[in-house]
């Protein structure tokens, strides 16, 4: 237990540091990289909790796919540097403070009501916890409707993007010539 606790504390420090680094660094590329580190640490938490499947998915989806796209967009737009820190969207700062207060207050309320001592269910010792089969069961039986609804939502978003860019492409690149040539 103690070894696990030491590892947890170490990782937690790294996670918080990475999160702060993401917030404070003025270079968007570094922000993104700190976020990747954060995701990696979170994935390790999942490993510690005995859920390798979720850990791997966390790395693959968040660190491996989404953040790579973030980097891609940052590099493509050449938006590495914040040009006017604190000037763009200056109303956001007070709003953020208010929202953080609200979040902390809510969390504190929940903790003070229910206490920190014991997790609701001791899932970690269940054999199938977090295994691919168990997650599949949950997704396709218990949460079938939200799962399918989400996928439909994502699909419509994707179609929307395709439609938007296709119009653009048709207007821009209409230089193809007939393709039926000698074979």
């Amino acid at each position, binding site marked *: 237990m103690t070894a696990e606790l030491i590892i947890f504390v170490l990782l937690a420090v790294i996670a918080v540091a990475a999160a702060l680094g993401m917030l404070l660094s003025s270079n968007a590329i570094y922000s993104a990289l700190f976020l990747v580190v954060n995701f990696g640490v979170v994935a390790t938490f999942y490993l510690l909790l005995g859920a390798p499947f979720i850990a791997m998915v966390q790395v693959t989806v968040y660190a491996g796919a989404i953040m790579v796209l973030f980097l891609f967009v940052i590099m*493509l*737009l*050449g938006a590495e540097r914040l040009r006017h820190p604190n000037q763009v969207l200056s109303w956001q700062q007070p709003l953020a403070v208010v929202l953080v207060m609200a979040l902390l207050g809510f969390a504190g309320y929940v903790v003070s009501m229910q206490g920190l001592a014991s997790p609701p269910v001791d899932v970690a010792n269940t054999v199938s916890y977090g295994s691919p089969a168990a997650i599949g069961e949950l997704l396709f039986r218990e949460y079938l409707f939200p799962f399918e609804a989400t996928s439909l939502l994502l699909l419509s978003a994707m179609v929307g993007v395709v439609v938007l860019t296709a119009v*653009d492409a048709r*207007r*821009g*690149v209409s*230089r*193809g*010539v007939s*393709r039926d*040539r000698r*074979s």
Partner: protein
Amino acid sequence: MSEEERNVVAPEQVPVADSIVARFGNALRTDDRDGYEGYVVSVESLKDVATVLRDELGYDYLSSVTGVDYFDEGKIEVVYHAYQTSGGPALNFKVQVDRENPILPSLVSVYPGADFQEREIFDMYGVSFEGHPNLRRILMWDGFAGHPLRKDWQEAYFEEENKPFDSRWPGGDVKRSEAENRFGKNVSYPDEFDIDNWAPEDDSSLYAGLNKSGSNGKKLKTDSLVVNMGPQHPSTHGVFRMVVALDGETITDLQPVMGYLHRNHEKIGERNTFLQNMPYTDRLDYLSSMSNNLGYSLAVEKLMGVDVPERAEYLRVLMAELTRVSNHMWAIGFLLNDLGAFQTPALYAIRARELILDIFEATAGSRMMCNYMRFGGVARDLPDTLRDENTVDFIGDLVNERLPAAIDELDRFLTGNEIVRSRCIGVGVLPADKAIAYSTAGPLLRASGVPYDLRRAEPYSIYDRLDFEVCTRSNGDVYDRYVVRIDEMRESVKICQQVMREIPEEGEIFTGKPQYNVRVPKGESYGRVENPKGELGYYVVSKGKTNPYRYHVRAPSFINLTVLGEMCKGHKVADAVVILGSIDIVLGEVDR
């Protein structure tokens, strides 16, 4: 007055219709200098004359624009050669301006192909072209003082006007040319040029002209990149630079920058004697030195009026056509390299080329810098044996068996290849009208569907007696240029086969006595040949001495590049490389 003019016109010259001559009155007169042909146009009516020539007489193709500095008369003459793409000889018109303040109207709006050539004249002679869209130096760098083709310009190590120079060690004392460096350590710069603040990376004038926004302004604003492809780059085929403005991966604008290999070939040519220029022509398009020789020989022979013996004509054609095959082999091999193939097609393509070079080596003494042709014939006859084989058998075997097999091999593996097709079809499309307007030549022009081949349009040597097709395609994209090259190789092999059948067994290969210093009669002449890369023209002016007064090379690689930017717009970066490869340039010829 028009009656007189008609009489002076050289026999092969197509006369401009009387009505048109009459319309321009004094502004258009025949060139009556001894040995000259064509018309002299006044500065004011140059543009009108050109428009009339293009629209009413069908001279739609401006082949060559060049300048001559007539120092003694205080004039700079700009010489234009225009053709009808339906065939026939050139129409040659000139315009003369004062040396001190030379300003001419630009013909780019009439003939877009004049773009780079006018820039070259601006660079070399200091003639300003009013209305030129982008009048900057093209071959020399910004910090170069003077205009190097003017007669009063002298190079740093100037010794004498003309070769052969005097002895460098008169009376036993060595006279080192370094000691006579006129500039010494103090290189001079133009007045307004500030060497300390000049940085080649921010060629601001060059970058400013680039169109950096994409096709439609409302798009997502991505970072616009300006990328310098070259001068050090693996696929620019030498020290050539393309300044590319990119929107993502899409090219919004492209400017070719050249001159890194410039050695003032034409000035050297004017210092040399006529014959001394022959080996220099090898160094232009160094992959096809035989054809370069042929073009220069034709130009000087026209002035000298010598005939070439029958056997020599056949030898010339044989060598020129073998050169075409070897050049196209390289062109296709390099094109595949540019497409990203890992050298393999290129190495297979040049296997047959080695045998062709064997023939050159055995005959001319050198594999690439052949220096083979002479005014009035060729330097040497075929050797008896080649690689321990009878030469005639060797060449016969090559043109009947091995070359067709090699071409078939390329055709079989490349023509139908899915990736080659998907990368080449529809890329770098050049419509026929643009191909003509931009004065493109060679496979580039013919792939756009213009059946213009000098060997048919204005036959030289013995091409009128030979049976071959002019290969054309209609779509004008990279793929068609590739197919035209494959077809042209087949036709060249066919010509070689005929030559080997019909060549006279015995006979002279040279007219008259070989001379070191030929004296060439006064006059001007323009000799042009269908080089593998396009029309190679030599404009030579003689003042009756042993040195050419003016020696200009109309380099197909150089002029074909005029249209590069136009062809690349809207394509991806990877396509720019392929399009450049499909033009098939050699920097020795581009930069001269």
